[in-house]
């Protein structure tokens, strides 16, 4: 079986760039295949594809080793494809020797990748780009003080590149309309939030209000039991009657393993009463309520109902819907939209397991990833108060649950019955809630954004005979000032203002009040090109330095994924920003600002390909500890680590190997590190000899290299080559024959993957990829350390083996275990830094990095090297580079 990464494929590259390539690169050589290749191919192929007989219209002898055009590259790609698919040489012809074929395929696919990249090289040209959905949402937030949810915004086009890549950020009619609709909705919400002062209010719910319901459901269960026993006795009495003895024996014989066979077949017994007479719908529901639940649910239910703490609060139950599997808390209807704080007084009982002391809270009906997960450190003696800031509108319902108990049907069931089978009751009551309250809208969150201040001076209901408010008199000026802000410092054209004014007047003439009328004009600004695009016009298509405002936008969309703030615009207006030292100072300020988290998270996510973590469901029954909230925390660890490097300006090398991790209590516990409590991520020193520290030791990275059930050494090896060693394997080729020879055999992972070495088509890449993956096999599919692995094949059997993590890089050094592998990877810091610099550049410039950027990349890496690769140095080097400061 062959497994592949998901990179852009050569075919598509050619498909999309041939037009550009024709102009760009007809003349110069962009890649060369090895000198030995043409003679080798000639020897094997020229009989049929030569001057005498161009089979299929294809001649191999005229194919130059030097690739200088998309056409030549495409012809070589055809050669690669037929070799990969095994189509050529024909089965009855002489075949290439396996080793030679693997080398040839490796060389050829590399040459084609190189040619593809060279032909796609924009020569440093950046394309004007539209804001991507994150940037659009952040920009609206800064302007209007409301945040549209990014997943409700128009989609960004491509995958496989950064979401800042201008070339891939398309726009269509639907999107233009969508932007307009979103802007209207956002402006209307702004009016609601900031249009009038809202006094703050509080609503509290005492959790023990749920107790009577729990008790009444217990009473129902007890009554069901009573009725069930009465019915059962009546059926059994009927069965004992002489006329039923034969039938009863027959029933017992036919259902040897069924509990209570008689009641399930009551209708075969003369004179037995129907369950309906005992107020049951049928025999099955009678059995479930009166027998199954009585045995399995009532002990836990009764323990809950009689616990003294439910007089003053409530516990979160697990799995039994009658016993508080969650707690609901409703925000009263009609409350204004705004920023609120949700407060809970909670405690964890002494009996609760430490890994269960987490509460998950989120709005009902919204996907789980939007829910907060908080550790509970308070005890029953000293409960704690948790505060969660929320953005909400009245009528919303929040749900509180225990982490890892509700993500799927099996989870809670497993937790409940594991405990039930051990103690005859159920899991210990773990999380206790005293009360829940919500307060707001918080005054601090009612501060209207500066852009709206002027507009808000116009009262909603005009006084009769009052003079027109000044903002209404000077509506043109108001619109102009708003547009200048929306356009990030750029003045709108008078003709555009005329149009906006015309819309406003049209609306007023139709009888609409001020705010409603102006909403249309504002929304129009927010769907116009100057707002949606980062435009940098160049006269006569020449390279030119950016002006202050353009630089301010490049900087803010790079480091904040949002618009420039007043300080940055001021620096742009005064021309200060054009000075390198001012730029450097702004970079420092911006990286210290919390908005830089947008950049760190989004960039890191895309740079390292973290989206892979969501490709698979992690099998709950095999990896119960890696529940969705733990997965989120492990993903967060990657971002938090990079953020820590950024905050403390530490060396990038720490991502290859470090003596610390950046974790919260959940991840610390996952890694077996003691003494960490709370939800905040912080730097924690590792004991000597720990496999953690650096990306390779992170649970999320290991999990990304799995399919949710088993590790994938291929994915892991390819990831290390791509992301850490700056040596990406060629993209997965289509049409390689799938290997099926070892079908149905019980093999170790190594044995299965050894097949990759048998076929040259596979070996050409997998000999480089697979060994690295083997070195990481001590991490299981969810990043726990292991020394054994096993493989189970239904119907065949199970095989268990000791993991052998040793291996050797292809044409490179050998390693005996993970630690040695990590040393080798860590020693390649310059390669890693080069990949990082390229990624940063591509993200910051919004274009792919090509060969024409090699010098620039080297300059950045060299500069960073002078400060031991401290991460901010890379950012400074990018920001000061000519590519960043000029439009080309």
């Amino acid at each position, binding site marked *: 079986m062959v497994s592949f990464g998901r990179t852009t494929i050569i075919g598509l590259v050619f498909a999309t760039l041939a037009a550009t390539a024709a102009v760009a690169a007809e003349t110069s050589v962009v890649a060369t295949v090895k000198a030995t290749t043409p003679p080798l191919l000639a020897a094997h192929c020229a009989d049929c594809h030569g001057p005498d007989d161009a089979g299929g219209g294809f001649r191999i002898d005229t194919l130059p080793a030097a690739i200088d055009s998309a056409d030549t590259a495409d012809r070589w790609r055809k050669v690669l494809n037929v070799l990969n698919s095994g189509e050529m040489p024909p089965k009855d012809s002489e075949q290439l020797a396996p080793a030679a074929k693997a080398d040839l395929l490796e060389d050829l696919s590399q040459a084609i990748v190189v040619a593809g990249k060279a032909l796609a090289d924009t020569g440093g040209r950046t394309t004007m780009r539209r804001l991507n959905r994150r940037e659009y949402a952040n920009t609206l937030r800064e302007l209007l003080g409301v945040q549209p949810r990014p997943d409700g915004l128009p989609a960004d086009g491509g995958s496989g590149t950064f979401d800042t890549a201008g070339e891939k950020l398309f726009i269509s009619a639907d999107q233009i309309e969508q932007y307009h609709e979103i802007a209207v909705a956002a402006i209307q919400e702004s009016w609601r939030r900031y249009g009038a002062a809202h006094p703050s209010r509080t609503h509290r719910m005492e959790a023990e209000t749920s107790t009577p319901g729990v008790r009444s459901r217990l009473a129902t269960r007890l009554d069901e039991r009573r009725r069930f026993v009465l019915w059962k006795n009546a059926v059994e009495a009927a069965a004992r009657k002489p006329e039923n003895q034969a039938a009863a024996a027959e029933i017992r014989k036919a259902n040897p393993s069924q509990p209570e066979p008689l009641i399930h077949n009551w209708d075969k017994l003369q004179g037995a009463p129907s369950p309906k007479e005992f107020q049951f719908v049928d025999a099955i529901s009678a059995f479930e309520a009166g027998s199954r639940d009585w045995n399995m649910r009532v002990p836990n239910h009764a323990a809950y109902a009689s616990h003294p703490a439910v007089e003053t609060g409530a516990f979160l139950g697990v799995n039994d819907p009658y016993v508080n599997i969650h707690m609901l808390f409703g925000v009263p209807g009609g409350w204004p939209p705004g920023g609120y704080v949700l407060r809970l007084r909670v405690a964890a009982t002494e009996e609760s397991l430490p890994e269960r002391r987490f509460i998950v809270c989120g709005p009902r009906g919204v996907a789980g990833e939007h829910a907060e997960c908080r550790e509970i450190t308070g005890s029953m003696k000293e409960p704690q108060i948790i505060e969660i800031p929320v953005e909400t509108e009245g009528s919303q319902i929040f749900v509180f649950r225990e982490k890892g108990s509700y993500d799927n049907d099996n989870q809670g069931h497993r937790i409940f019955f594991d405990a039930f089978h051990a103690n005859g009751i159920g899991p210990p009551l773990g999380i206790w809630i005293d009360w829940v309250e919500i307060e707001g809208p918080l005054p601090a969150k009612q501060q209207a954004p500066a852009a709206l201040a002027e507009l808000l001076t116009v009262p909603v209901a005009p006084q009769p005979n009052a003079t027109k408010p000044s903002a209404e008199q000077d509506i043109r000026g108001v619109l102009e000032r708003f547009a200048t802000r929306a356009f990030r410092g750029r003045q709108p054209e008078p003709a555009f203002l005329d149009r906006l004014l015309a819309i406003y007047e049209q609306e007023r003439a139709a009888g609409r009040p001020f705010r409603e009328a102006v909403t249309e004009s504002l929304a129009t600004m927010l769907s116009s090109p100057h707002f949606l695009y980062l*435009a940098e016009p160049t006269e006569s298509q020449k390279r030119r330095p950016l002006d202050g405002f353009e630089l301010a936008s490049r900087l803010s969309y790079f480091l904040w994924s949002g618009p420039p703030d007043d300080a940055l615009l001021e620096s742009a207006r005064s021309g200060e920003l054009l000075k390198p030292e001012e730029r450097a100072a702004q970079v420092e300020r911006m990286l210290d600002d919390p908005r830089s988290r947008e950049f760190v998270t989004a960039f890191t996510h895309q740079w390292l390909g973290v989206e892979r973590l969501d490709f698979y469901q992690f099998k709950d029954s095999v990896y119960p500890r890696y529940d969705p909230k733990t997965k989120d925390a492990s993903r967060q660890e990657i971002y938090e680590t990079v953020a820590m490097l950024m905050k403390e300006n530490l060396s990038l090398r720490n991502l290859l190997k470090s003596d610390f991790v950046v974790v919260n209590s959940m991840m610390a516990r996952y890694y077996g590190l003691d003494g960490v409590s709370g939800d905040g991520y912080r730097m924690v020193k590792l004991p000597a000899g720990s496999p953690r520290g650096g990306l390779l030791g992170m649970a999320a990275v290991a999990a990304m290299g799995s399919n949710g059930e088993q590790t994938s050494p291929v994915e892991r090896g390819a990831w290390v080559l791509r992301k850490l060693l700056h040596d990406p394997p060629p993209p997965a080729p289509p049409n390689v024959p799938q290997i099926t020879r070892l079908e149905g055999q019980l093999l170790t992972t190594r044995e299965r993957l050894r097949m990759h070495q048998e076929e040259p088509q596979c070996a050409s890449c997998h000999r480089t990829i697979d060994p690295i993956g083997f070195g990481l096999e001590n991490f299981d599919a969810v990043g726990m350390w292991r020394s054994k692995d096993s493989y189970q094949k239904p119907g065949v059997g199970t095989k268990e083996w000791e993991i052998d993590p040793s291996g050797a890089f292809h044409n490179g050094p050998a390693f005996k275990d993970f630690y040695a592998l990590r040393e080798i990877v860590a020693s390649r810091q310059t390669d890693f830094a080069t990949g990082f610099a390229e990624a940063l550049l591509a993200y910051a410039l919004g274009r792919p990095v090509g060969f024409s950027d090699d010098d620039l990349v080297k300059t950045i890496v060299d500069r960073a090297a002078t400060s031991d690769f401290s991460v901010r140095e890379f950012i400074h080097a990018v920001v000061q580079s000519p590519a960043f400061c000029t439009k080309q």
Partner: protein
Amino acid sequence: MPMPSRRRVLQAATTLLALPSLESLGFRRFARAAVAARPKRMVCLGIGYGVTEETWFPKKDDVGAGYTLTEGLTPLARHRDSFTVVQGCTHAFAGDPHGGSTVWLTGAGPTKSLSMDQVVAGQLGGDTRFASLQLNGSEPGLDGAGHGPGLSLAWDRRGKPIAGFNSPVIAFHKLFSADDVPLAQRQQMLVKKRSVLDAVLEDAKSVQRGLSAADTDKLDEYFQGVRDIETRLAKEERWLGTAKPKTPLPQPGEGLVGRDEVLIMYDLIVAALQTDSTRVVTYRQPIQHLLKSLGIAVAAHDMSHYHPGDRMAASQKRDLAQSEMLATLLDKLKATKETDGSSLFDHTTVVFGSTIRSIHYLDNCPTLIAGGGAGITLGHHVVQPRNTPLCNVWLTLLKGTGVEIDAFGDSTGTVKELAVG
């Protein structure tokens, strides 16, 4: 200050694009003639990851009308005279072993091209409320896995992806939800929308000044978008007095996934055609969610790399489900009668397939064509020489649908075996 007309700006802005000529007399006359002859329709269903080679494709030497139906096609047995399976065809430029839909309808090579459905929409879309309808399986977070880049199966003439409706509920509302706003108010809305377009175009012009070639190309997308809205508004204006059709089916529930979603989307497709809301529909179907709804735990990508065992069983189960669902679509198309007594099926071409054959093979694309819309030979198994351009099939369908065209994508001709007589 005089305001130049929006149309003139558009003409100036982009020389590539001709203005809509939908209202021209000649077009209307043509459209009426088409209606009189019962309009033709096309439905394209993209499945992303291919099929199970061993059990879906008929044997290559078993061609013609009498071929043996394979296991994967068994659920379609009652329609065996109503569809044809074509083998041997490939898109030479397809290169993504994990994306079966990106170039499926375009065969896009070095020259970017319009997808087949959009070619048809250009011909048939003028007289319906929607020129074409794009539907997508809703699989949030999966980013088109198995289908490849794109926003639906459809691509516009500039090679840009066309967005689609991602849920049955959205599609239902677009098609059938009554507009209860009074006419005068809707006319006013149109005026307002036009003012908004005028304004954003004004801004676009000022952005355009001094842009580099590449940037101009980028901004052209915006102009194209505005132009499309303009076309839409013109259409909306024409349809202003016409109420949306009465819905032949109840509003779908929220949150339908996988199999349930596909079935309801099929109902919507029939309803859209039946009410002549559109004549061209594409549907990029859910993959992972379909598996989930069939009780298959194997991940879609893993399933695509099947080999005997769980994964192959999953792949086969998926094939069967797809064939069953397709069979119900054909049932409904046949059961829906036109005013002249013929059925929708008689005038509709249904195309089902992917550029991925199975596993990660991109040759011999699975291709199943049903319906009388293009007048092709039905009930046959047609095998073309290896690596025949799939665009030959598309060209055959386009010609059969009445598009006057001599080539499509990398086509080298039509498929003779598909032509009746």
